[in-house]
């Protein structure tokens, strides 16, 4: 059982029998009024987006999903292919069902494929993933402010803000819960 305090991006809950994933979340409190928890959720089966506002004290059932340890193999058209680490069984997941996870899929990445009544409807990636920077502008020498950031494209095509000292070809760690740069991988 979850409470409103557990609400965050990525949380999966059951609503009217269907599994939903929270895709946006905002804590609001109008002056002297009560705390309100504004959430935007995606139905993991049919993709419908719902806006719901909750008050303190409300509770949620976790989504009843089965997760299987698998690894990412390749992309084919708008499907992504994963393989079960034990049985070697391969399954395909729709691009739409992946959400932000597709930003982090590199060959052999270990993931949890989420199944609802036997059907793959989503993928959980590790909290931290290392990806190589394939494009970013060089750092202007002499800029010691250290307070700026610049865009960088990583090998999956995902674009994010990184510190100015990151160069092309470097490996960086990304926090997949926020989609933000976390640290540089040395070596």
């Amino acid at each position, binding site marked *: 059982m979850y409470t409103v305090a557990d609400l965050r991006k990525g949380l999966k809950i059951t609503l009217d029998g269907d599994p939903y994933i929270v895709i946006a979340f905002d*804590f*609001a409190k109008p002056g002297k*009024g*009560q705390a309100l928890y504004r959430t935007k959720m995606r139905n993991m089966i049919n993709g419908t987006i719902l806006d719901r*506002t909750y008050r*303190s004290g409300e509770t949620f059932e976790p989504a009843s999903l089965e997760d299987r340890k698998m690894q990412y193999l390749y992309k084919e058209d708008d499907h992504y292919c994963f393989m079960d680490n034990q049985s070697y069984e391969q399954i395909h997941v729709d691009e739409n069902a992946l959400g932000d996870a597709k930003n982090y899929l590199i060959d052999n990445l270990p993931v949890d494929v989420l199944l609802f009544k036997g059907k793959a409807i989503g993928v959980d990636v590790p909290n931290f993933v290392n990806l190589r920077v394939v494009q970013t502008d060089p750092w202007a020498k002499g800029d010691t*402010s*250290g*307070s700026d950031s610049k865009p960088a494209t990583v090998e999956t095509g995902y674009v994010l803000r990184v510190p100015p000292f990151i160069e092309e070809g470097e490996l960086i760690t990304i926090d997949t819960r926020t989609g933000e740069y976390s*640290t540089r991988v040395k070596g």
Partner: protein
Amino acid sequence: MAKNWPLTRRKEALRGRSTIIQEIRRFFIKEGYLEVDTPLRIPAPAPESHIDAISSGRWFLHTSPELCMKRMLAAGYERIFQICRCWRDGERGIRHLPEFTMLEWYRIDADYRDLMSECEALIRSVIHVLGHGGSIRYQGMDVEINEPWERLSVSEAFIRYSRMTMAEALETDLFDEIMVRDIEPRLGFGKPTFIYDYPAERGALARISKDNPAVAERFELYIGGLELANAFSELTDAQEQRTRFVQESAFRASMNRTTYPLPEKFLDELSDMPPSTGIALGVDRLVMVLLDLSSIDDVVAFTPEEL
């Protein structure tokens, strides 16, 4: 290069924060206010329905310096201001930190309308020091600071921005939801907005309007959809104040929230307090608006998660 890059990145914002706080101090001292610093750890926070204090031993970290500052008004201090940390349990989001910085100021022989003008003067003086000219840009929208600010009553705001009247929203218990979803996101664009005259039951420490007993003399200031300040013409009737605190405490008990002892010394001294007005302004949020930053995390050195 430093490991803590997010902190390195905030250097410019924290410089701006420091400039803003210095200018706030200079403004109030110039206006004849005395800077005070009342205790942060207190035995009895004001019992308000939806504000939860964090306990500290058998006492509490204050949720606002309001009660101590009003005791000073009652004891003869005429104009006082304070910049201090406040704590509110469970409040965390892109605009909330459970530990945040509040500016409060109080003065006697004035009401909430006088404070609207003083708010305008304060923020104009701060943006002048930041070199913004007469307007600021917040998250892509221009806000004119030097022209007269918008003044809109809460009931007008419901008519303008929602499909229900204020009375209907109260009756159906949807006041907060409509405020957050339909009204707040539209306040303070183009120019800052004062939204005033809240339902009487939504200002536990505010004076009821002489012209309309259904509303309290209370306003909030919004810039770019962000709530910056809350002000009252202060309630000085000690008996009425006690009744309201008892009601708020009963509500807290009915919701299984922590109840606090009644602030007896405050209630006892309140009868000495002259007609007064007071305001609380979120300093972190003011910094967000003036530096054009979207998250409260961007204007503090450390968030709780980073400690």
